[in-house]
């Protein structure tokens, strides 16, 4: 039991992202309303974004900007240790992923509007019943 708690606490960022991802997946599978599914999809994407962002973090590190990069000291005057700076690459990658997520959300909502205009409802079972009637 003590081991398990230690694993959870030491890697809490991963547990948070897994929980969020499962919440999103649950909403996409179980919810009947198309917009709720879209919200679930967005939670799912956000969980992965959080996962990436958390992998870049380091204890006791600072933002990756060289304070003494210029000026009289010169770049060579200080040794640069990678340990002192958080990893900026996952964060930069996630800027792209956020843009993708926003675009997907936009397309999904636009489609939901079209579906609503056609069937006058967003509940999946009612739409399927309407399709079956035809």
């Amino acid at each position: 039991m003590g081991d398990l708690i230690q694993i959870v606490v030491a890697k809490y960022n991963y547990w948070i992202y897994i929980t969020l991802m499962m919440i999103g997946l649950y909403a996409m599978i179980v919810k009947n309303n198309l917009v709720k599914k879209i919200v679930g999809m967005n939670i799912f994407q956000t969980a992965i974004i959080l996962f990436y962002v958390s992998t870049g973090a380091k204890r006791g590190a600072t933002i990756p900007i060289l304070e003494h990069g210029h000026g009289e000291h010169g770049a060579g005057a200080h040794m640069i240790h990678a340990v002192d700076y958080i990893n900026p690459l996952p964060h930069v990658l996630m800027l792209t992923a956020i843009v993708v997520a926003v675009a997907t959300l936009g397309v999904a909502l636009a489609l939901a509007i079209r579906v609503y205009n056609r069937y006058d409802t967003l509940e999946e079972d009612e739409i399927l019943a309407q399709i079956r009637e035809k």
Partner: protein
Amino acid sequence: MSQQYPALLVIVPLLSALVISAAGWINKRLCFPIAVAALGAAAYSCIGLLLRVLEEGAIVYRFGGWDPPMGIAYYVDHLNGLVLVVVSVVAFLNLIASKKSIELELPDKTAPFYALYVLQVTGLLGIVATGDAFNLYVLLEITALSGYAMLAMGKDRAQLSTLNYLYMGTIGACFYLLGVGYLYIVTGSLNMVDIANILPPLYESKAVLGAFIICLVGVWIKMAFFPLHAWLPNAYTHGPSAASSLIAPLVTKVMIYVMIRLILTVFTPEFAFNVLAVSKPIVWLAVAAIFMGAILALAERNLKKMLTYIIVAEVGYMVGGAWLGNRAGMTGAILHIVNDALMTLCVFLVVGNIAYKLKGYAFDDLKGLVRKMPFTMGALVIGGLSIIGVPPTCGFFSKWYLISGAIQAGQYAFMVALLFSSLVNVVLFFRVIEICYYEPFSNAHGHDHHPEPMAEAPLTMLVPLFIVAVGLILVGLYTGDIVNNVIEFAIPKSIV
């Protein structure tokens, strides 16, 4: 100029997508020529690139001059050189063939449609050319988003089925992204070749195993591999014919390419086939995919929907072939990417021609169609023979490699599945052919004294269809050259 081909084949279509949407405001007639010019330039670059690869081997193109582990590199070898040519040529032919049908089906949306079309091709070509795992994700989403928008322009249930596609497609892309994240944590790199160099000491790591499985599942969702195929038939059936005949041949095939690239380059065959003992279960899944695709196709009474289930079965062919783990199976899978793209294009263009003239493609609408559209139906016969796998058409040769690979690997179930699917395809296509050739046209009431006048689709639709149909036979006749000069070099020596 030829040094810049890898960049041009993505940048030219990308920029012209912007130009097309701007030109749409000025004059809608400008859009089509711009799209043709852009895709023509892309196809020219792709062919030039393949010829260069054949001469001097793999080409690495550094974007902005940054060296690979830091910058993004496009990496073109025999495998993706071949796939690039197929993608660009199929997209180009389909664009020309679809002009009339786009004008008929989407009269007020031609400009956005052409912009999306070119954007989709940008994404597909980028996926194939890129050597960067994260870049691949971005291009994957470009392809997917433009695909959703195009498919949703269809009638009836198009929006609903596209929304379902969007849910599944997004999960697939997110899984891939997550897998790349695991790989990045373990290796600290996003460049495919770099990852492959760092990975070998880490083969036992659970994170690498997780990365591989998650990436693979993501790609499977995107290619509609059997248990994950539910989104495909409806989305492809209800979309406009021009969109279906672009997306159906290309998107699933490009995803197969991504899977093969993951196996061959990123994780290396050594890891995929020897360290992991998953080949057998995956081939069994492929067997299930082939059986289910064939049976579900048999249950359909609608030509286009029947064809979408055939795609599900064909995806099973290629996944199974790639996972047989021997040279013949991998050759068959790569050759089938080429052949299946052409075959699917051929039959979907036929559906497009029928939809242009008849406004419906259920089996009841097709009665006696051969008198009305003899050339279109002739192309359907050639496409059907190729999907069945009758000798001079190309479908036979890839099936031959797949079956001999199955025998070498001792996976007899896969061989049985391939033969079963061929038999089912015979039934499927001869049923359609019988309806078209021997049943009287529905308006004629069986009277022979006023034969149905010929009302063939316009020439701009027939000529590309003719080229594709002849292409099916030519690719079949030149299979030996394709395999010996291209595919032979695409598969690493370690696979025997």
